[in-house]
Structures are given as structure tokens and as C-alpha cells.
């Protein structure tokens, strides 16, 4: 008999050692941005916050346990998630109409999923740089949400250490491990997983941005909840 927990009243089986997010993956969509099933959980974006037996927990790091009563898709929780997404939008510079990633961007897709229509908060308009020095990859720091997926992908899959977060609080920023601090002088190559993992348009592969026209892209027609569940199911089958 496998163990189960309940998410919004639905019984979900899990195995020992799994997080709530892992248990939910193919069954229930829990919004997330810094989480990716292939990498060590980070727990920083806080979009996956669920209520476990009445207490707020990050689903991506919190261990699943027998009999847990988890609340996920509730009006209150989703309202908080929308505000957290709005925070991510106002702290950076997210001009979707001029971003290559639009329509394929997970930040945007989560915002669509949560029916976010405005920014709610005042915009910070921080001064951030663009690093187009690399022949094949560019970083637009304006769109970085500090999820560290590139950091983890580089360390855990590419066996490199190209990216890191630096600074504290609102001055947090992504840095590149190179004497010049420039991407061109780093060990990154276009085939690296780290170059393809960014959930937003902060790290882009050059000359590929408009292969699929705007309007025909993934999240233009598919809610990220459906995409996420379908992906998890495919991975599960494999």
C-alpha cells in the first residue's frame, strides 16, 4: 500500500522522500517558477506555497507525509500567488511586447494562469545591464527573477559553474563566472543546459527568437497548468 496525502481533497499517492511538489507533479498543478524536476529544489520564488495542515509551506521543498491535508488551488492562496507574481514583474523590467520569449515565458504564463491583468505595485524600473558579448547566448538582466535555475543547471548538469547570484536584498543580481564578468569569457556554450533553462527571457539563445511567430507559441493557447501536467505525465511514462 503506497502512502497518500490529500491536495484540495484529492488523494495523491507518494513515495517516501518525495516533496509535495514531486507527489503532485502528474496529478495536480502547483504554480512554480524556481522549481524544475531535474534540479535540486530551491524554494525561493514562493509561488508554490501551499497550506499544509494550516501552515504555509513551499511545496517544492516540503516533504510529503502520510495524511497531510494540503490546500493548493484556493481563492486566497491564488490571490497571494498573483501578488507575488506582480512583485516579480515590478522589481525587474518586463516589457513583454519587446521580448523574444513572449508566449514561451513561464513568468508570463504563470501570470496568465493567475489572471494577472496589472502590476498592482509601483514599478521599480531598476537599472540593469544586457550582456550580448557571447556569440550564441545573451543575458538580459532586466528579466532575471533570481530563480537560480541557470546556476543549478550549470553546476548539476553541465558540470560547470557559470552563474551565481550575488548581492543582498533588492540589490540581488546574477553574475557570470569569468574574470571580465562577461558571458563571452565564461565556460558557457550554446548547448549547455544552463543556456536553455531560464523560465523568463533573461537568458536567450541568439538568432532563434522568432522561429515561431508570436501568437502561435506554447502559452498563447495552453494554460501552463495543462502544459506542466502533460510534461510530468510524459516524463512519468518514460
Amino acid at each position: 500500500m503506497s502512502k497518500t496525502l490529500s491536495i484540495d481533497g484529492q488523494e495523491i499517492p507518494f513515495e517516501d522522500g518525495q516533496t509535495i511538489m514531486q507527489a503532485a507533479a502528474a496529478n495536480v498543478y502547483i504554480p512554480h517558477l524556481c522549481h524544475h524536476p531535474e534540479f535540486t529544489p530551491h524554494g525561493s520564488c514562493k509561488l508554490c506555497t501551499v497550506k499544509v495542515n494550516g501552515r504555509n509551506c513551499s511545496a517544492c521543498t516540503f516533504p510529503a507525509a502520510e495524511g497531510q491535508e494540503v490546500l493548493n488551488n484556493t481563492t486566497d492562496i491564488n490571490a497571494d500567488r498573483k501578488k507575488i507574481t506582480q512583485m516579480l514583474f515590478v522589481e525587474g523590467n518586463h516589457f513583454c511586447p519587446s521580448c523574444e520569449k513572449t508566449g514561451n515565458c513561464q513568468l508570463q504564463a504563470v501570470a496568465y494562469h493567475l489572471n494577472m491583468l496589472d502590476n498592482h505595485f509601483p514599478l521599480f524600473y531598476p537599472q540593469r545591464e544586457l550582456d550580448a558579448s557571447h556569440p550564441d547566448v545573451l543575458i538580459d538582466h532586466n528579466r532575471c527573477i533570481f530563480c537560480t535555475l541557470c546556476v543549478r543547471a550549470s553546476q548539476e548538469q553541465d558540470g560547470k559553474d557559470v552563474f551565481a547570484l550575488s548581492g543582498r536584498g533588492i540589490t540581488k543580481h546574477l553574475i557570470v563566472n569569468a574574470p571580465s564578468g562577461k558571458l563571452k569569457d565564461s565556460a558557457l556554450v550554446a548547448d549547455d543546459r544552463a543556456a536553455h533553462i531560464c523560465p523568463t527571457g533573461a537568458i536567450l539563445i541568439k538568432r532563434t527568437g522568432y522561429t515561431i511567430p508570436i501568437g502561435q507559441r506554447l502559452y498563447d493557447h495552453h494554460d501552463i497548468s495543462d502544459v506542466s501536467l502533460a510534461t510530468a505525465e510524459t516524463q512519468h511514462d518514460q
Partner: protein
Amino acid sequence: MHVFIDKLVAEHQFKATDLLAILRAIQARYHYIPPSAIAHLAKVLALSASHIIGVVEFYSFFHLHPQGDYELLISDSITDAMLGKQALMDLLSEKLSVAVGAVRADGLVSLANTSCTGLCDQGPAGLVNGHPLTQLTPARIDLITTLIHQHIPVEDWPAELFAITDNIKKTDLLLTQPMPLGSALAAACKRGFTETLAEIERSGLRGRGGAGFKTAMKWQFCREGHADNRYVICNADEGEPGTFKDRVLLNQYAHQVFEGMTIAAAIVGATQGFLYLRGEYSFLYEKLAAILHARCEAGLLGENILGQGFSFTIKICLGAGAYICGEESALIESLEGNMGIPRNRPPYPVTHGYLGKPTIVNNVETFLAAAHITLHGSATFASMGTQQSKGTKILSICGDCLHPGIYEFVFGTTIKDILETCGATEVLGVQIGGPSGVFISAQEVERRLAFEDVATGGSFIVFNQTRNILDSVTNFTHFFAHESCGFCTPCRVGTSLLKQQIDKIVGGHGSAGDIVALEELCQLVKSQSHCGLGQTAANPILSTLERYPELYQRLLKKISYEPGFDLDAALATARHLTQRDDAAAHLAQIGEDHE
């Protein structure tokens, strides 16, 4: 420079965990961490340069760009502000010809604010090249600027500038009864360590950092299960503004604190301990190191302690200006040579702490109390206090009172009694537990000092009726935005938004909707943040909104909405460039026909 670094790194046995100590030495010598130092360190410590840069940019006392030969930092605590800090800062800035937050063009001096330096009973205070300056006055500012302009090394400055007094005003159980060297440890050996743990359990001792976790339970969790190594950490990262008791305890009662740590080590089976001392208290380092040395000489530390066959050593590690490192898992990260970012929990430090091993982290005062209980037994301790809060609590009292300093009170004492004892009159209220604690108004002074009523790690800031509570709310809210580690979205962005929103309202630009937005934001930051910092960052606003809604209401404009930025000021550049000053070149902050 490479020679200096090679020697330094060798002294630290090439250990990457010692990164903070190494960077402290480089910063002290060069007044910044030069790029070539980073590159060289990366090589000899086998770290990535980006990791080192990350650490440098995380801690306030490290800089990627040169600071002045004289690095002047003035404490930004509300208590320093109440003692006239701002005028002194202006004076310093004027006399030294350097803007706050800047380095003078000739590189001689830099001037900046810093978070509370733990000298609130003798402020306004500051630091020059890491040395604490106390009781700053215009006359002392004159002297300091003269010394700087004469290029006198800080080591040769008059000692009175650096004089620190302990100001112990009231003692009780812990601070009165003397404890001969090694006596508590001997008592523990005699009683047996398991039985000593039981004795501590019977005492009802709870953690003195503020959260109040049962000490014996924490130690029990740590000693359970298999592990090849365990660690004992004393949290002396006393960063909560208004707190300074640990400074005094370490200055006068260090033996007892170390003895408490050694007893804990014997109980949980640890061989290595750390004292994580906040960077602001680096002046205590030599003295504490000498005490550790003396304890080794006396057979109270090191190999085969008291002939009982167990070994334990204590290493002092200095912080580098980061309030968040008071959070136990952030502290552990910092000890490992990383940015001080709180870990995801579970697992907890008692099972996965320093280097992934079972670790206990306790407050200075907790170890002091544990040593006392071990020596004198639990009965007296447990007979004092309240149902859920046994023994005494040591408070750092400052602000508007006649006798600021250290006070030991029995748990259950009313706030009123505490106020009378410290000579506070015409009290408006007290901030208890620092910015992350609560504001108690003069109408609530019958409440009691206890975990089940008003809990505190020790900070007790008195405000009299001449004070504007919103000044402290603003100060505290800015403090949290400055100290947020930035790991999680709600705290990273939320504390900055709180700062903007409180500034808008206190600046007189708020309307009714802004209070609603403020409250909403407070609840979001409180409920969604990753750790205690974010979860308490909205407390100053929430606790005053609840008690003094009229203070906020009075500031609001009777309009539906006002912009959060100064419209007319936003035209200043264009006016200047076009040389215009006609009526159309200006904007009113509120529309003319606004209702």
C-alpha cells in the same frame, strides 16, 4: 598582495569555510577586496570567483570598491537617532567633506550608515575601521575629524573615544551567583551528562534568543541518531536593534558561556564548537581568544577535558555585517563561508546543521543559564518565573529612560515594573524584542515579560511622549529592507515595497486606499516569507496600525489617490534643460478639482 594572501590563507589551513575571516583581513588591510585578491583566493581556496564575489557583496562590511583609509560607519539604530545621531552625521559629513554613503575623492575617508552596533546604551555610536566609537558628541566629532585630517592611525586615537561600559544595572539569579572556573563542568561530570540533560529539562530552560524553543529538547534531538560528528554553536550575532546584552555577557561572563557550551558538547557528543560573534563586536575577539586559551590551559577545553575522556574546542568566527545571520541556518551558512541565506526546513540544524551534521545553535544567554543550572541544580531556576517561562531574562534597556543598561528580571515581571526600575517616565510605549518584536503602548504595561505574553530576545526600547512612533516605524521598516537577504520574492520585493509605502504615507502623500494597500502588503510579507526576517518585517507597521490607527489617519489626505512620486520634482530636469519656469512648467501634486 599575493604574499599577504598566501600567508593569510595558510594561517587558515586553506579552508574555504574560513572565507569570511580571510575576507575580513583583506578588507582591513586594503579597505576593499581587490579583483586580483578574488582571483588569487579563488585559486588557492579552490572556489569559484563568483562565489567569493557573492559573499563579498552579501556582507555590509566587505566592498568590491575601495573605501576610505578611515572607514567611518555611524549606527542607524532608532536609539542613536533619538540621541541626536542625524545632526552628528551632518556635522561629520560637513567637516570631512564627504557625502553619506560616499568615499572622499582623495580616498582618505568614507562615511556611511550601518545597522545597530549594539551600543544603544551609550550612543550615538559608530565604528571606525571596525573599532567601536561611543557617546559621540559634537566635540568628539571635532576630535575625530582632526585625527583623520592629521592621518593619525586609529590605533593611536585617544582611548576615551573607544571606551565601552557594561552598565549592568540589575542582577538576579544568573548574574549574581558567582561561578568558580570549571565548577559547572565538574558538576556535569559528577552528575553524568545524561542526567545533566535531565536536570536542564527539569529547569524548564527555553532558548533566550526570543523564539523560546526548549533547550533540553533541542539538545536531545541533536544527540539522537547516528552521526560521525556534531557541532555546538553559540549565536552571538546579536543584531536585533536595541540589543546589547550578549556584548556584556561575553565581556564579563565569557567563562560561564564557554562552560555552558562545553557542557552542551559533552551532552550531545560534539568535539567542535563555534562562537559566531557579530562583526561589530570584533573588539571582544582578543579577550575571548585569551579566555579560550586559558580554558585550554586549565584542562577545560581541548583533549580529555577534566580527565573525562571527551574533547572539545571552540573557535571564534566573526560576522561581517548581516542581521540575517542571527537566523540559525543563515548563521550556519555563514560559518561555512557562504552568503547568510536561511536554509529550507526541514531538515533542521539538529539533524542537518554545520557541514550537514547534527548541530545545536543557542543564544549566549542560554549557554550561560545552562551552566548555572548545571552547577546549582534546576530547583531554584524552575521555581522562578511563570508557568511556561522559567528563570530570569536579561534585558538590554535603552531609549528614553534614566538608566539604560543591562537588567536581569524574573520572568513574569510586568512591563510597568521594568519601566519603573529603569527610570522611565511619561512613557508612550516600549518596543519589546526589537523591530521584529511588538510595540506595547502605555495602556498595556500590566502585561508580563514571558514567552506566553511578551517575548523578547532582550531588546527593550523605551519611547516617551515626545516621540513620534512613526519615526521608529519608518526606521525599522528601512532596516528590514536593508537587511533582507533577498532569497525569497515576498521578502526581497515586499520589504522594499513596505519601505516605499510607509515613506509615502509618513511623507504625507497617502490617501485612504494607501492604508488598505499597506495592510494587505504587510499580511502578504508576513505570511509568505521564507524565514523569520520577512515574517516579522511588517510587525512595526502592523502593531502600530492596530494600536494607533489615528496616527496614520491623521496623515492621510482626504482624496481618493495621490501619486507615489513627486510630480513637480519629476519635471525639474526638463525645466533646467529648457530654461523654463512658467506656470505650465510645473505640476501640482494633486489635481485642482480633486474632491
